[in-house]
């Protein structure tokens, strides 16, 4: 098991956002976390990446994530956030190079030839070679998202956490992002945990799914077994299946 989450609970100001959520992630799996607004999807990513206080345990390769040094954690787990804004005009290359932080150590050996090679490689992979020296403040939302995707490639983690990575993005970027993640996942010992809003995307790219409702895991397992007509109707309070078919049939 690459990732084990045991009895995860998160609460803010006395209100429970997540309660007793359990799941695990094996190599080669792409686990889609789905559920309506307020189900606790993004909070789940925050807790697993150690960005929010939680109860329960998160085990990475069997080790308690709480006790791991931030650098060691970053070598195993990479996160692509939902939205980005960069405070100052760093170049795309500088932002991507930051992904190598966990490897290169601090001062004075701040960047090695290997880091430079991996940085340029990641920029290339994300299709950003042309933007290398451009300030990230001049990039569009989709381009900026790709810069941070490249940063995750440079970080080279084994587990990738995606928080609605294609939100607000054009369809082309959405497709490119998901295809790139899928290609990345084909390498040995890789796994993806992602939050998605779009259930069609979950079906198309996910191998497994975790259905959340009001902070509780309602179902988990292979994606087709979880996103069933009955389960979705119950959680979303509508006939999701019928709605999706009706929407898509308009294109016939």
């Amino acid at each position, binding site marked *: 098991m690459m990732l084990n989450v045991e009895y995860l609970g998160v609460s803010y100001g006395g209100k429970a956002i997540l309660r007793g959520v359990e799941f695990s992630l094996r190599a080669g799996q792409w686990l889609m976390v789905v559920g309506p607004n307020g189900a606790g999807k993004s909070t789940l990513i925050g807790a697993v*990446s*150690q*960005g929010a206080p939680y109860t329960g345990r998160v085990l990475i390769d069997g080790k308690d994530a709480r006790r791991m*040094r*931030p*650098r*060691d*954690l*970053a*070598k195993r*787990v*990479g*996160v692509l*956030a939902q939205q*980005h*804004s*960069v*405070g*100052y*005009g*760093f*170049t795309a290359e*500088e*932002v991507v190079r*930051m*992904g190598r*932080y*966990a490897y290169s150590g*601090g*001062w*004075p050996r*701040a*960047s090695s030839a290997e880091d430079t090679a991996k940085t340029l490689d990641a920029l290339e992979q994300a299709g950003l070679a042309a933007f290398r*020296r451009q300030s990230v403040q001049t990039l569009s939302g989709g381009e900026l998202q790709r810069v*941070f995707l490249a*940063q995750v490639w440079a*970080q080279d983690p084994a587990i990738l956490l995606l928080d609605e990575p294609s939100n607000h993005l054009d369809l082309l970027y959405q497709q490119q992002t998901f295809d790139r993640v899928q290609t990345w996942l084909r390498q040995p010992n890789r796994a993806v945990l992602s939050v998605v809003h779009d259930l069609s995307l979950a079906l198309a790219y996910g191998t497994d799914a975790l259905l959340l409702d009001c902070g509780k895991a309602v179902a988990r397992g292979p994606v087709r077994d979880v996103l069933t007509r009955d389960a979705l109707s119950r959680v979303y309070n509508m006939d999701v299946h019928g709605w999706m078919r009706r929407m898509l049939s308009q294109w016939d």
Partner: protein
Amino acid sequence: MRDRSESFRAFEYAGFSAVAFVAALLCVCVGSVRIRAADALAVIWNSVWSLPLPEGVSGPIIMSVRLPRVLCVALSGASLSLCGAAMQGLLRNPLADGSTMGVSAGASLGAVIALAFGVTIPGLPFAGTMAMAMVSAFLSLLLILSLAYRLDRALSTNTILLIGVIFSMFAHSVISLISAFAGERVKTILFWTMGSLAGSTYVNVIVLLCALVVCGAAVLPRARELNAFAIGEDNARTVGVNVRRVKLVILIAVSALIGVCVSVGGTIGFVGLVMPHITRMLVGPNHRRLLPASMFGGAVFLMLTDLLARTIIRPLELPIGVVTSLIGSLVFIYIFAKTRTAR
């Protein structure tokens, strides 16, 4: 396009040093008594090696008045500018600085309390004032940040600035209150609120130098971490930065350095705000270049400002803090307007 390597090369540092040296020499030579550069250099050189002083040159003016002052001014400028650059990166906020965030006001409050109530450490004159300024700078930073965090978990620009301003007003009103009852000590207290480096001694130079070396050693090697913070704190965490530890180390170093600067020269506002900003426009936001460049920039800027302050309406001398605040507040408004319209 020119390859923008991450840190400066040796020749670039040599260039910065040359500019700083020329500025320092200018400040030593110009004043109520004008001195030729060659004479000034000869006096300094001979004094360092205990050789007899050249004839016809007022050695004491150079050695015991101007040189210690210029050195103090340069070190304060470098320190304040370094602090500003580090805070602006750490908080991802181009308006963060000791004076806009209330840390300077907190430091002067500590110094004023020490002066008015006679807090001293036996055997070490000024050490009580200095320690109070440092402790008070750190406590005010802690207070301001925790208050801001309670109101707004994202620690946004506006919240921090607002609380910093409110805290500054509070600190200044307490200072006024203390000075109202201070009687004879009121003149010394006025000094802290205005900021001046007139009458600096070599002891001050050594104290400032030590503070800059110690705190610089804590801040400068963390340029990469500051880059990560400047990109975004959440992003810094996910790439593996020990967010809490770095934040704590930088904040302690910065408030200690600001505390020492205030205890020596009083509140010299806006240097730490304006210089890093101008430097960032020139060398980019990467802290491996920004931090050292800001230090040189701050030193040169403050030396020239001090020169202006003591020569512009000779024989009267303006407090340097007044001059930097005059320049700084205008630039501050400009930056604020520009960053607001950019969004």
